[in-house]
Structures are given as structure tokens and as C-alpha cells.
């Protein structure tokens, strides 16, 4: 396997630590800890960068300027100020709330959102947890995200939260199915559930977006629905149910929801990059993880673009669309992939 | 732009077999009617194919210190004219039948008149205050309305008060 910049760095670090301590377990452990720290860093940085990006993109779409006073002429410190402020706000626990569930909800939401980052191949060989059922595990973990929403909605003792909780359950469960089915075609072609294999299968410029355009569209729509962003942001549809399950949360607890939302947004973008846009593959003049970053940020921009252009759908429309259009189409896609593969004699 | 009102002669024809209807000789002659015959008159005005006063333009009440007049302005697109109907009520105990059975759209306006002027409309589906709080005393638009403003509620979880108390 060719050695990329990131995996080379990891190898070198491992060697150095081994030379220093002489214990292979310790070097593995140290490397894992470094990796986890890096990922958590990436996630929280992503939240900060994307809030800034979101505000600038929104301003650009709405013929405005956007933040430009706090921290230089581009307002670069604006998200830092926001985060610091949220950290130091008062933490209010509503009187009628189910306190245990209420406190657990934001933490539990953040865990699966962060955990899935372990499986992403940021570069050739640069995967924190290289498992051969990566895709399977990925969706098993991210599927857990439904529960904390319902917990938060239920525990808040607020009707808006409760309605938001109901909505999120029905919506996320409905779109999990088409999301997975849209990827089945790719899994059939590559014959592997390891994410790096899927990326490698796209080398030579034949990205799966060209082989599976229908799947890409289904995936993108389902992913937007899974991350609860416009046009599917019913969960926290501001004008309808205030802030959905998060209505009663303040300060840092709310910031955790916020963090998880942007972590999920980046997850969706990274998944699209990995499955359809060739992951870290790209011309040689830039290292792989830079290509990966560029593609992911581009996908994030596309999803933000949706948000500031489209209105919100209604709760029955979203479910009808999910079950009656997305799911049959994704199954059709699997079927077509199978037929073509048979015809070409690949099976 | 002057609006056309039904003239006294035209009104006299409507009067027909209503006993309590009286018509003032004015530029815009209003029909005065007693509460008993009020609903049949409104029914006639709305449904008579020669009149068709289907649009209730304005419903209000005026406090004349001895009586309270409830005023109805009806408009007929067919005739292109208004007719003014007035019902005098006793000031101490103002009560007239509700017109909602003829004009369902009068519901909110009757509630408003009840709220601000204190005229009770019998037969109204939901006779409650609409603008003022439920526990409000008195009817503000009456001429003898006197009111002492209560102390407004005060915020208790006020920012910075604890530190002040400490200091």
C-alpha cells in the first residue's frame, strides 16, 4: 500500500514513541489517544468554522455582508466569541424536567456524532479504526442519534419539545432506509464494506457519482434529512415549534446540540465525499487529506446552499416523500446495479 | 366621496309591518328599532331580494350618557347604498339579541362591544371579553369609566440583584 502523508506521519510517530519507551502497547495507545484528540479537535473546530461559514454564506445569499467587526475585517473571531459566551451562560434546569434524561440527552447525542469519525479514511491508511465492516458499523452507530432527541424532547416537559421529539423520530427512521439502500449499489460494485476499499475502488477518476448518479441524489437528500437541515429541518422548525427538542436547553448544553449538529453536517459531507466523490483521491500536486478536505467543505457548502434557498417541508410531505419516493427509487437503483453487473458478467 | 344612504321614503317602505321602527328625518336617516323586532328586521334587510344588505360594514355602540345605542351599518352591493340601524338600550342593563344568527361574522365585533361598552348580546355563542383581560373590571369606552391603573407585575429573577444584596 502506498504511504500517504498522514499515515507516514503516524508510522513515524509510532516508531519514535516505541524507540522512546520500548513498549509496543504504549506506542499504540499513545497513537490512539493522539488520534482521538485530533478527531475531537476536528469536530469542535468544524463547528466553530462552520458557524462562521454558515453566517457568511447566509449573508452572501441574502445580499448582506455578514460578521466583519469582531476580530479583524473578516470577523474571524465571531464564532470564538459565541462559543465562549455559550460556555459562560447560566445553566437552567426546568423544574418539571426529568433531570437525568434531560442531562444525558445532549451528551448522548454528541457521542455517536463524534464516534463515527473513527471510521473515516482521511487519507490512504489514515483511519483511526480500520474495520472491515466499516459501513455497517457507521450506520449502526449513527442510528443511535434518534434516541437522545426523543429523550431531550420527552424530558423537557415542554409541548414544543415533545412535538419536536416525535417529529425527529419519524423523520430519521424514515430516511435511514433510503440512505442505506442508496449505498448498497456501491457495496455491490466494490464488494467490500471497508471504507478505504470503497475509496480505492474509485481510483482512476471513475467516481461513483458518475456510476451511480441516482444513488448520489438519493443519498444527498436522505443525508440532509438525517442531519435535520433545511428543507427537512422540521425538528427545530423555528417558526413552528420554536427550537424543537432543544427548546428548554440553555448555555453549554444547547451548545452541545449545536456541536453535534455541525458534526453531523460534516459527517454527511464526508460520507458523500468518501462514497461518491473519490475520498482522498486526486491529482498528485496536493496531498490526499487536502483533497479530502476540499471535497468535504464543498459538500458542506452545497448543503448550506440548500438551507438558505429552500423553504421547509411539512411533516406529512417529508414522510410521504421518504417512503413513497426515496425508498422505491433506492431499491430500483440496487436492482439496476445488479442487472448491469450481471449483464457485464461481473458477478 | 359621498356615500349613498337609503332615503326616508325608501325606508318607509321597509318599515311595513314593524311596529317599533321609527325613522329620523335626517340626511342619513337611521332606523331605530326595539330589541324585540331587531332580528326580524335584520333578517329582512339581508334576505329581501330587493334589498340584499348582505355586508355588515360596521358594528359599534355609542354611549349617550342616558342610553347606549348599538349602531349597525349595512351595505348592499346590489343597491350601492348603506342603511343605518340603531338599537337603543337601557344603560344600567344593556341587553339586545345577538345578530350572529343573521351575520355570523359579527361574532368578534359583538364581543368587542361587550368588552368595551358592556352591552350584552343574548344568543351569542361565546360572550366573553376579547381585548381586555378576563378579570378586568368595568367597560372602558363608557363615558363615566374611571380606572386606577394597578401596579404592573415585577420581574423577580432580576439580573445582578444577588450581587447587590451581597454588597
Amino acid at each position: 500500500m502506498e504511504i500517504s502523508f498522514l499515515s507516514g506521519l503516524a508510522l513515524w510517530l509510532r516508531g519514535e514513541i516505541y524507540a522512546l519507551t520500548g513498549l509496543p502497547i504504549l506506542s499504540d495507545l499513545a497513537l490512539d489517544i493522539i488520534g482521538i484528540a485530533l478527531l475531537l479537535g476536528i469536530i469542535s473546530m468544524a463547528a466553530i468554522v462552520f458557524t462562521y461559514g454558515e453566517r457568511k454564506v447566509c449573508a452572501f445569499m441574502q445580499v448582506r455582508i455578514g460578521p466583519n467587526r469582531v476580530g479583524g475585517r473578516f470577523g474571524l473571531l465571531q464564532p470564538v466569541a459565541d462559543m465562549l459566551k455559550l460556555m459562560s451562560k447560566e445553566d437552567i434546569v426546568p423544574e418539571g424536567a426529568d433531570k437525568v434524561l434531560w442531562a444525558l440527552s445532549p451528551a448522548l447525542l454528541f457521542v455517536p456524532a463524534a464516534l463515527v469519525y473513527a471510521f473515516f479514511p482521511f487519507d490512504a491508511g489514515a483511519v483511526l479504526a480500520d474495520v472491515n465492516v466499516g459501513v455497517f458499523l457507521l450506520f449502526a452507530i449513527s442510528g443511535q442519534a434518534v434516541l437522545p432527541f426523543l429523550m431531550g424532547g420527552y424530558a423537557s416537559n415542554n409541548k414544543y419539545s415533545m412535538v419536536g421529539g416525535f417529529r425527529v423520530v419519524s423523520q430519521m427512521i424514515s430516511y435511514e432506509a433510503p440512505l442505506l439502500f442508496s449505498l448498497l449499489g456501491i457495496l455491490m460494485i466494490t464488494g467490500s464494506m471497508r471504507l478505504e476499499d470503497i475509496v480505492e475502488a474509485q481510483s482512476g477518476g471513475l467516481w461513483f457519482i458518475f456510476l451511480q448518479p441516482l444513488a448520489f441524489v438519493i443519498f444527498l437528500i436522505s443525508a440532509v434529512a438525517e442531519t435535520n437541515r433545511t428543507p427537512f429541518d422540521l425538528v427545530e422548525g423555528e417558526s413552528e415549534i420554536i427550537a424543537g427538542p432543544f427548546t428548554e436547553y440553555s448555555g453549554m448544553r444547547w451548545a452541545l446540540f449545536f456541536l453535534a449538529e455541525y458534526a453531523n453536517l460534516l459527517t454527511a459531507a464526508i460520507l458523500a465525499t468518501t462514497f461518491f466523490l473519490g475520498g482522498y483521491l486526486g491529482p498528485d500536486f496536493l496531498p490526499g487529506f487536502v483533497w479530502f478536505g476540499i471535497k468535504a467543505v464543498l459538500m458542506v457548502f452545497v448543503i448550506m446552499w440548500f438551507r438558505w434557498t429552500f423553504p421547509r417541508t411539512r411533516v406529512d410531505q417529508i414522510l410521504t416523500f421518504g417512503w413513497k419516493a426515496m425508498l422505491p427509487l433506492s431499491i430500483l437503483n440496487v436492482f439496476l446495479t445488479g442487472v448491469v453487473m450481471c449483464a457485464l458478467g461481473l458477478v | 366621496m359621498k356615500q349613498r344612504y337609503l332615503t326616508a321614503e325608501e325606508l318607509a317602505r321597509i318599515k311595513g309591518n314593524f311596529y317599533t321602527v321609527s325613522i329620523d328625518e335626517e340626511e342619513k336617516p337611521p332606523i331605530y328599532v326595539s330589541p324585540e323586532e331587531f332580528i326580524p328586521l335584520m333578517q329582512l334587510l339581508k334576505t329581501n331580494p330587493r334589498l340584499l344588505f348582505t355586508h355588515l360594514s360596521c358594528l359599534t355602540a355609542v354611549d349617550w350618557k342616558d342610553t347606549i345605542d348599538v349602531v349597525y351599518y349595512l351595505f348592499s352591493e346590489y343597491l350601492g347604498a348603506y342603511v343605518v340601524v340603531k338599537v337603543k338600550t337601557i344603560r344600567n342593563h344593556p341587553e339586545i339579541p345577538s345578530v350572529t344568527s343573521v351575520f355570523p361574522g359579527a361574532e368578534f365585533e359583538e364581543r368587542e362591544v361587550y368588552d368595551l361598552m358592556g352591552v350584552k348580546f343574548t344568543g351569542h355563542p361565546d360572550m366573553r371579553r376579547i381585548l381586555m383581560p378576563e378579570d378586568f373590571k368595568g367597560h372602558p369606552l363608557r363615558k363615566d369609566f374611571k380606572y386606577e391603573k394597578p401596579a404592573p407585575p415585577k420581574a423577580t429573577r432580576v439580573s445582578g440583584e444577588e450581587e447587590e444584596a451581597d454588597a
Partner: protein
Amino acid sequence: MKRTETYLLNMGPQHPSTHGVLQVKLTLDGERILKAEPVLGYLHRGIEKLMESRTYFQCLPYTDRLDYISSMNNNFGFAMAVEELAGIEVPRRAEFIRVIMAELNRINSHLIGIGTLANDLGASTGMLYCFRDREYILDIFNEVCGARQTFHYIRIGGVAGDFTDKARELTEAFLERVPKFLSEYDQLLTGNEIFTRRIIGISAMTAKEALDLNMTGPNLRATGVARDLRKLDGYSVYGELDFDIPVGEHGDNWDRYQVKMKEMAESAKIIRQCLDKMPEGLIMAKVPKMLKPPKGEVYSRTEGTRGELGFYIVSDGTTKPYRVHIRRPSFVNMQGLDLMCRGMLIGDSVSAYSSIDPIMGEVDC
């Protein structure tokens, strides 16, 4: 045992989509609305009572604060009522200026109506676009009277200041913008599949229901009844102007939206004609400093932006009105809310609020 229960959801008085301080008590079965009961009065300031202790000239600024986004139309209505009561002839030039201002304000108000509808459906960019274009109208108002809101420009007997050349220039520039921004909204909203699906067939009402509920304005016209007081009464100089009354068909949110869009184009047409026909001359009639209208009463109505705006004034021959009653179109139209929300989902209720377009200052008075 399977058992379902309805529950009550209080929307407002502080809710992002209730446009001010409207409170709606929704009885819900899951997400479906069984009953919607508006609770009014959170902005009841007692304007009718206050007017009894003010002179006629002092009453005028209060009308600004009734329906605060179409102040010009309110000024117009009140000034017309007092003029009819006191028998004041308004100079012709002033009439044209009044019509221009009223129609500009109508566009302004419809822009906010459409913008908030878009915002409530989650398309906040649409609202930002509407507010951007609204600023050009405010520039014109700023030029003629120096205010952005609560203008107090149309006075009893005429208007406060002349329609300057600069104002004419701004108005002409704005008229050129109108078709441009209307087609822009068509691209952003009207042609958007999600937007149309959210409002077509939602909160429909028949013409009979609307007439029974005394509804007026765009809400009535959307059901297919072509009743517009500007045509019907032909007050001021509207009788000499050529314009159409856009009507809808099904009375749903889509028709209300379309009626508003088309009315903006019609208003632009009216302004164009007024600019061409406006004569030179006085802008203010001779009005006594102490205005004492003769004893009597008057009910004068105009087509406000939300429907029939009527002023009922009783004079007892003094400088202050004995009784003022304002027939507020938003207030009467609010009766339709229950009908419009019944059987819909929570998400539709917000579009019903914004398509009925109530301004709480007017509803609560």
C-alpha cells in the same frame, strides 16, 4: 387499552410566527389541529378611548400606530372621514399624492406579508429580499415626510409636504424595479416546488364562508369575490384610474399569495397613472385651526391593505370627537382563523397566520 387524547398547545403571545403578540390556542390531536382559538388584546392600547380626549388633528397620529405597516392608508381613511364630517374639499393635487402614497404603502405592506409568509415556511432568504426592496419605498416616504414608519403625512385637508421632484425621481426608479423584483420572487418562491406544495390547497375557504365571516381585502378576493372598495366606491381619484382587481379561485394560501403578488403589480400601474395625471396646484385645503365639525356622525371606509378600513366618528360640535370607532379589517378577518386552521397540521397553521396577514396593532387597536 388504546386511548388517544387531545392536547392544548399555546402558540404565543411570544412566538416567532405569530407576528407580534397574537396568541392562538390550538387543540391538537397529534399534529392535526382540531380547533384554533385566537386570544387577542395583548396590544390593546385603547386608541378609541384616547381619541375621545384628543382634537381631530391630534387623533391623526394614532391612526399611524393602528396598522403600523400601512400607516399611509390609515391616515388616508381617517382624514377622509373627518373631511366628510366637516365638509372640506381636498385639492386635486393632494388627492393624487394621497393615492400614490397609499398605493406605495400597499406594495410595502404586501412585501412584508409575502416576506413573512416565506419566512414562516422556512425560506428566510425570501423575507430578506422583500425587506431589501421595501427599503426603496421607504426612501420615497423619507423624502416626502422624513419618516420611515408612522408618517403622519396625509393630513386633514391635504398632505403635509409637496411631492418633490426628487420624490418623483425615486418613485419612477422604484416603478422600474417593481417588475424586476416580482420576477425575482417568482423564481425564488413561486417556482419552488416545496413552497408551492406547502401552500396550494392549504387553508382553503369558499366565497360563501368568507362573505359570511365579513372578510374583506385580499383574503376575500382570494376566494373569487371581486370586491374592492377602490372600484366599488371609487373614492378620492380612484374612479378615474384604470386598474384590475386580481381575484383567486379556491381561497387557499396560494391564492392569497398570488392575489398579493398581482396587487403589487396593479398598484404600480396606479402609481404610474397618478404620476402622469398629477396636476400642479395646492396640496392643502383651508382648514380652520380649531376644527369644529357640525353635530352628526359619519362612517367612511377605504380599502386598506388588509380590507375595508372604516372610521365611524360621532361629533358633538366640539373640537374633539365624541366617539370614534375603527372598523379594523384584520380584526374582522381574524374570525376566519379557526376555519382556516381546522384539520390542518401545525406546520400549516403558521402559513395560515401569515397569509391572513394580521397586524396586531390593528387587531387589538
